[in-house]
């Protein structure tokens, strides 16, 4: 049992909040309780709050001003992240969990880091795969063996989100997907950027962890149907392959792979939204394969346990330099790949 329970406020009652955070927080009901739900759609806010036994509002500032909210979860569209995370920091909350990506630009991310450092409010990004126990164990062994990846592949072949959300909960007020990009945005660029910052963003911090430091050069970027992307980039002397694909009936496959002269690391992650335990990580060298996991707990649960450990002082929080670097890495790839797709499409 937790020694005390922390009040959580959800900014944005979107499917991520309903299908991921509410069920996870129920599983950790001795440590957290949802006390406030805010959404610009008042009906959705009210309905989701009713489920959680929480109060509701239709703007983030009311939630952030609520003294019972100790942990703020930012699940709004990306363009609002920076302002809302900073506002939560300035309000002196105990912690902020922001869905990925942390911000829309590196300057915004730096402003968040500065606000976090100044106020002492820890900021966590909801990169659930980074909290996966099998991944953490495999990475530790990879590091121990001093492996250097010459190739890293991240690949997500997934069904559309609603398919997975419906396994996790019953969604209220599901937003309509955008079928065409906003006016003035090149369609190929929109697909490629959307894939990088909406799908690959889950695993780019993991890829960065496996790759050497070095300049990023995107060599190829192709939108693929029905909705996906194929990107090849170099990072220093290594190659990064990004594959994303979302379709109707496929068998989900979500993997991160690193290949070196001495061995291979591969993590197979479960479908998003559902609570299907951890991934499974294997390291294969010329002699044997070592497998880590699967474990009962999933990355979402570990993410919240990580927050609890921060709140109770079990874990110390460093600066946000690594999170800012993760975002800069993702934006660099998204910008280069988007531009490459646009110019190739125009040619």
């Amino acid at each position, binding site marked *: 049992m937790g020694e005390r329970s922390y009040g959580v406020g959800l900014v944005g009652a979107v499917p991520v909040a309903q299908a991921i955070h509410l069920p996870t927080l129920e599983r950790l009901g001795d440590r957290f309780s949802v006390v406030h739900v805010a959404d610009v759609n008042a009906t959705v806010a009210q309905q989701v709050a009713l489920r959680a036994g929480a109060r509701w509002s239709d703007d983030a500032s009311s939630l952030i001003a609520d003294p019972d909210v100790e942990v703020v979860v930012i699940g709004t569209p990306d363009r609002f992240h920076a302002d809302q995370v900073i506002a939560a920091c300035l309000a002196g909350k105990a912690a902020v969990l922001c869905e990925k990506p942390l911000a829309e630009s590196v300057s915004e991310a730096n402003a968040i880091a500065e606000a976090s450092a100044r106020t002492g409010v820890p900021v966590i990004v909801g990169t659930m795969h980074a909290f996966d126990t099998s991944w953490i164990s495999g990475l530790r062994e990879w590091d121990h063996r001093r492996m250097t990846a*010459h190739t890293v592949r991240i690949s997500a072949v997934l069904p559309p989100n609603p398919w997975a959300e419906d396994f996790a909960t019953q969604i209220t007020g599901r937003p309509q997907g955008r079928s065409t990009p906003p006016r003035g945005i090149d369609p190929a660029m929109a697909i490629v950027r959307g894939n990088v910052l909406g799908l690959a963003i889950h695993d780019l911090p993991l890829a960065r962890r496996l790759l050497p430091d070095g300049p990023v050069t995107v060599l190829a970027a192709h939108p693929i*149907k029905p909705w996906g992307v194929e990107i090849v980039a170099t990072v220093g002397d290594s190659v990064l392959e990004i594959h994303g694909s979302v379709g109707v*009936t496929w068998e989900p496959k979500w993997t991160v792979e690193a290949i070196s002269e001495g061995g291979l690391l591969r993590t197979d992650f479960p479908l998003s939204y559902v609570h299907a335990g951890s991934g499974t990580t294997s390291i294969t060298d010329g002699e044997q394969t070592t497998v880590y996991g699967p474990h009962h707990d999933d990355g979402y649960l570990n993410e919240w346990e990580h927050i609890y450990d921060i709140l109770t002082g079990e874990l110390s929080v460093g600066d946000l330099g690594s999170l800012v670097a993760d975002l800069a890495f993702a934006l660099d790839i998204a910008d280069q790949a988007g531009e490459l797709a646009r110019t190739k499409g125009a040619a």
Partner: protein
Amino acid sequence: MTEPLTLTIDSAATPPAQNIARATAATLPQSFRLVSGGGDVVMIDGRGAWTERSLAAIASGAKAILVVDPSGASHENLTEVLDTEVPVILDTPWRHNGVVSRISPYFQKVDAHGGMLEARVTVPSSSLLRESITALAFTAQALLGAPIIGLEDVAARPDHLTVFGSTHDILIRLSAVTGPIPANAWFRLAGSNAMVTVTVPSSESGASGVGTFTDADAKITVPFAFESAHRSALALIARVLHQRLVPTDIADFRRVCPDGSRAVSSS
């Protein structure tokens, strides 16, 4: 019972290639009988000047040619071989593994317009990257039942080679990297109605390939068959001669093989 075909190993074949031929022929004793010269079928070592050796064997009366592990060749020479109209089977690492023909109808069921075929392999040595890409493309054509065109290097490093190409409506991504695992090739095609994947063991392995097709209704696994690609290729030669089949290996290979008579960017 049909008389066994006679099989001659080309005198220029290296000891490893000779061993492959003997070991494979030993698994088809009712179909082939090794003879020292003048065989119906001549096995050529693909590591050497195999087009020239093939032409010489054909000129000497060979009814069919089996080329083990063909490396690159000039398109001019390939055309010369093609023009002889003598059946030639290219025993590349994966194409003639039985799982390829069993799963290819499922690849062709996928509505993949605008989609992408992924093909990957991990090989033990940098020197194998280029020919592995060619072998992947050669196999991909058999899976898709369509020619691949416009192959271009995207990332070429000492330990990594990625090449993009296309069919008339599918993007093709071929990737070969070095690493310490068996050289099993892996292919995946995802479309709007289904997804299909196949893992093809390295050519010397008798492990079964695994091919699966997944759509809204079910996941289908094609039958297992524990037959190496070398054995499948040699068995195919017998069927070609007995059933008067016309293999398209040389024409297909020419389409995806860098023209050895021209300068080719190297990893």
